[in-house]
């Protein structure tokens, strides 16, 4: 299970964008978290992905309470989670060929020898041909680069996937293809998914269950009206 309990997080302790939010994803479950941009849902996703330390609250991953985020997170936990973001160009090193981009997590965890085989295995179902794998990010389209970013996220066979607006920049067919690839991975591995986005139609179609940010922040008595007022006033 992926359990977020009473998470408060943000970039300014006096005005956290996430306040006392709790959310649970069952093993193998796909949960869609809906909310307008700027509401804090991406920050919550980063907390779940071990990329952002919350100010308070707990994250329990498959029974194990998380004590460190980013480089302080234990490797076993970090490799249990795959993350894909909205903008593939911001989350990929422009100097790397796609094959090396996908292999990054394997190299980082000292599994260099496995890399070639694993990259081929990941690339084929995503339609990434050997020719595309030899190219650098500026030589491929957004859709192709996002496919590579998904392959990278799956490289270590994570039990959890966190997807933050991963299709917001993509056309309908590429969106459907990416979702199909994610669902194929989940159906063969039983991985759970937290997909964050603002497109109701998409997330309702994709996920087992969708939750709206507003419902999340007002449940168990934690009202967060401050989220709706402009930053200048909430920072008072």
């Amino acid at each position, binding site marked *: 299970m992926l359990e977020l309990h009473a998470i408060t997080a943000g970039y300014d302790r006096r005005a956290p964008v996430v306040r006392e939010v709790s959310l649970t994803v069952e093993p193998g479950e796909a949960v869609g978290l809906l909310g307008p941009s700027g509401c804090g849902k991406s920050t919550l996703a980063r907390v779940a992905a071990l990329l952002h330390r919350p100010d308070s609250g707990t994250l329990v991953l498959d029974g194990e309470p998380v004590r460190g985020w980013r480089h302080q997170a234990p490797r076993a936990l970090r490799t249990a989670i795959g993350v894909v973001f909205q903008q593939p160009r911001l989350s990929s090193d422009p100097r790397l060929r796609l094959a090396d981009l996908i292999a990054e997590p394997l190299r980082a965890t000292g599994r260099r020898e496995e890399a070639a085989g694993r990259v081929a295995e990941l690339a084929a179902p995503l339609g990434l041909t050997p020719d595309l794998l030899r190219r650098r990010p500026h030589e491929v389209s957004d859709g192709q680069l996002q496919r590579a970013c998904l392959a990278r996220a799956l490289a270590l066979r994570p039990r959890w996937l966190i997807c933050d607006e991963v299709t917001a920049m993509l056309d*309908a*067919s590429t969106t459907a*293809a990416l979702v199909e690839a994610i669902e194929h991975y989940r159906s063969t591995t039983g991985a759970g998914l937290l997909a964050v986005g603002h497109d109701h139609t998409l997330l309702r179609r994709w996920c087992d269950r969708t939750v709206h940010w507003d419902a999340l922040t007002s449940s168990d008595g934690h009202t967060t009206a401050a989220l709706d007022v402009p930053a200048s006033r909430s920072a008072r």
Partner: protein
Amino acid sequence: MTQRPEPPVLAVRGLSVRFLMPGGRQVAAVTDAHFDVAAGECLALIGESGCGKSVLASALLGLLPANARTAGRAHLGGLDLLTADERTLARTVRGRMIGLIPQSPAAHLTPVRTIRSHMEETVAQLTGVRGRAAVRTAAEAAAARAAFPAGHLDRYPHELSGGLAQRAATALALVGGAPLLLADEPTTGLDRDLVEHTVDELRRHVDVPAGAAGASPGAGSRRALLMITHDLTAAERIADRVAVMYAGRLVELADAKAFFGTPGPRHPYSRGLLRALPEREFTPIPGMPPELGDLPAGCDFAVRCERATDACGRRPRTTDSVACHHPYLPEGVRA
């Protein structure tokens, strides 16, 4: 086809763009595009990223990189945009004849200047309004036209929400009274509510007469809007007609109602795009588009197409606005 009382604002004939690459390679970014956009009309140019639609927009604005070669014509107000020199493009086309609504407005605005300063500079540049007080008034009126709140005029671009930045960009695009608005992916990254709001606003600017800031209200004829987008829902909401681009070619030009409703698109690629929508079948088109530097001899869509036959080894000609050997037939017309 709908009756058009006025001649088209923009008439594109046989527009092609080639990029010359090192080693003598060529990339066929746009090939033989033909289309019109009339006053009071919105044409949505749809297609996936890398299909050539942004290159087409850059060609119209004269903003192609140096290694690009164009062919064909693009007539706007007695001028051929493809052969006009940079001086003409800068002085009379961009802003005055074509109002550009960019993809990420915040990035387009100068970060150290307020919205008011942007508006006033553009008013002074593009209209006959002179004198501090008059420019100030005209700038405020221009902002109001795009529903940009007066109370936010003294803010800096980074202090605006995505929606307000989009309105500021739209206000700037409207200042010169340009007969053609060119919106490049105006809804990317916006929430659905904001998408709807943005396209409704754009539609309003097509439906009311143009006229530069400071001109008497109602002066001039209506604007034409060319909207480039991969957002089919936004296109459906705003467009009168749809042009579908695949691998650098317009494969279908259709009335928006017929395209999104019944009988639906006629080109197999267009059908596939609509089928991929989460509110429809949510099934992707198999495979990926071909490389623009390495296009097949026959139909560019053949390897992905469920209707492909041997005939598709030859390139289909555009007949009745569809480039396909085996288009879906409009029901009851020729079935």
